[in-house]
């Protein structure tokens, strides 16, 4: 029996990745309580994981800190002293997901710009030697999940992200900028996902 089980395991590992949607759905929580990761907490986490100084990670109009000044209340903060908002918004405002997207896009664009400026110390964007291949895409997916969600992707997630990157590549040229843009957009999708916004 042990030999049969071992053969089955080796066969499973050797087979192509499972189709993206063939995995079992995660069990639903009987008590689905989650919290919004407010702007300050979100940016602190990303500043640490993407190795960008907190005070530089997101500046609206290159001047106003996204979480502290520009979108403080919209992103779930409070401001008791200046405008007497003592509690975070009960519910996300209409502007909240838009501002969240904006912040995620700024963070990702900023990280990739730094990577392009100093490839030796790059965190997310590593230019492919030739045309981006499956290994490049998988490696990028692994880096993104590791840096943004602090975990590894499962096979389905890696495959879906690779498919998205392939789709982007088909819509752009093979320049370094196109690869950088793919990195920004994949980073954005993950950094603005529900898993990144809530905990």
């Amino acid at each position, binding site marked *: 029996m042990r030999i049969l089980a071992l053969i089955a395991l080796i066969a499973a590992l050797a087979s192509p990745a499972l189709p*993206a*949607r063939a995995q079992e759905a*995660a*069990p*639903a*929580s009987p008590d*689905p*309580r*989650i919290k*919004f990761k407010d702007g300050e907490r979100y940016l602190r986490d990303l500043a640490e994981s993407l190795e960008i100084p907190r005070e530089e990670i997101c500046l*609206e*109009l*290159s*001047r*106003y800190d996204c979480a502290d*000044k*520009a*979108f*403080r*209340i*919209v992103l779930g903060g409070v401001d008791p002293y*200046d*405008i*007497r*908002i003592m509690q975070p*918004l009960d*519910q*996300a405002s*209409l*502007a*909240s*997901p*838009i*501002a*969240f*997207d*904006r912040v995620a896009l700024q963070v990702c*664009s*900023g990280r*990739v*710009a730094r990577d392009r400026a100093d490839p030796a110390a790059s965190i997310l964007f590593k230019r492919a030697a030739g045309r981006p291949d499956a290994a490049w895409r998988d490696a990028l997916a692994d880096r993104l999940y590791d840096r943004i969600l602090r975990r590894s992707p499962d096979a389905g997630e890696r495959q*879906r992200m690779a498919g*998205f990157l392939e*789709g*982007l590549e088909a*819509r*752009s040229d093979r320049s370094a900028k196109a690869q950088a*843009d793919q990195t*920004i*957009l*994949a980073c*954005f*999708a*993950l950094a*603005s*996902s*529900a*898993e990144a*916004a*809530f905990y």
Partner: protein
Amino acid sequence: MTHRASTPNASRRSVLAGMAAGLAAPGAALAATRRRGDGPEPRFLIVLGGSGGCSIIDSFMAVRESESPNGKILNAWPDSLVQSPGGGPFRAIDFSSKTIGAIPAPFTANQSDFVKRHGQDMMVVTYTGTSVNHGVAEHRSVTGNAAWRGRTLQEATALTYGAGRPIANVHLINGTAFTDRGTDDSLPSSAYGERVPAPNLWPLSLDGYRGVKGAPDRKLFDAARDFRDGMLDPESDFVQTFAASDRLKRWFELRGAPLRDIEGADLITQLMVHPDSEDMPLKAHGLKSSPLAKKVREAFPAYGFDPIESQAALAFLLIRCGVASTVTLGPENSAVFNKGAALGRGGLSAGDMRNTPIAFDFSHQAHREVQSLMWSRVLSVADRLITLLKSEELAGGKSYWDHSLLYVATEFGRSRNRPEGAMTFGSGHDLNNGALIVSPLANGGRVLGGVDPETLMTYGFDPLSGRPEPGRNMTEAEVFSGIIQALGIETPGANLPDMRVMRRKA
């Protein structure tokens, strides 16, 4: 001069597209839609919340000392300071002082100019509230003490007139209960207020892409959003685990049509009051000001540092650009000074204190000075906002103002007694007061109710004829109902009292 709106089409998509192009008057398109029977004629509610008690007997129902047998020990004003502009029913106090209580802050306040300019649209309504607690009274001033299942005036307006507007109910003032959500949970989420914490920067939160340096092409960005919304999120263990969370459901709902409507209307441009400058480097980020920004800045030149001016500037654009059907603004609870104002060498210069600490409630320290300064401030903002709305045509020769109602909501009145003959004294809270409503939709040019000269307490009126009725006190619910009815809001099953005398049309 009235500027004519130019867009004849009417679909929601074309309205939003027109707004994005910066060419259209979306309100005109909406008005056209409604004239064709698709909805009611547009109406706009402006709530100007005066925290701390805007006292009606220190403004439009002021009593002269000579008119009251107790004038020296009650808050009757010296005869020379009480104006009757234009010979109409409204009184006004024009008052200057070198100090505000112990604060050396000279100022000149004026109420009569507002009466002269807007008396035909002014309606003063007496009432007696039910709480002298700030927050409770503020909220009751907009719910009529839960007159209609607890919904606020703003929510009722957004519900009736907000269709097709991306952000129907906008709350520009913070830290007050004028903008607390009502207790009627049956309304669609679009009727509840959207909070604007910082009017000058808020437009930036209305586009997830524009102005972000180094961002990839917009179409690719949209593709990334589609990937996230259609595949990454739905397939994630996190979302599958917490799919039933109300927070998550609302998040996903907002990322759909509301997001597309807001970004599609290019509100990051339409609502941008600031010009390109060192403080707001718009051009360097591919952004620009609203086409109406210059006009708005001229009306509210202190928009950059005075919170109520930045609120009023944005309030106008929200109405004019077809974004909102109701806006709520008001003076700050903190002191506001002119730029560069400094204490020393004898105190502040004339007019340097624009807003007293805790707004009207600083009447505890210096009743008459605070009431005069703060009324003057509120009326000045109202006047400029009305003037802007009058200058823009909505449709059919009617201006935006012709479709608007401005309600100066407040919490309560102030106590009437004073040390004999004193000009400077403090006051407490009192349930008895009155409210100012300004609108072509209201039964303007009238004071409804009166003041008892012996006590300086206001009394009520007959809701149908308007005949004064000494001994009767009007309720918060009656004021609420009158406003709702003047706005033409249908109220099936609400059992609100008929306040015929408060509306211009039957």
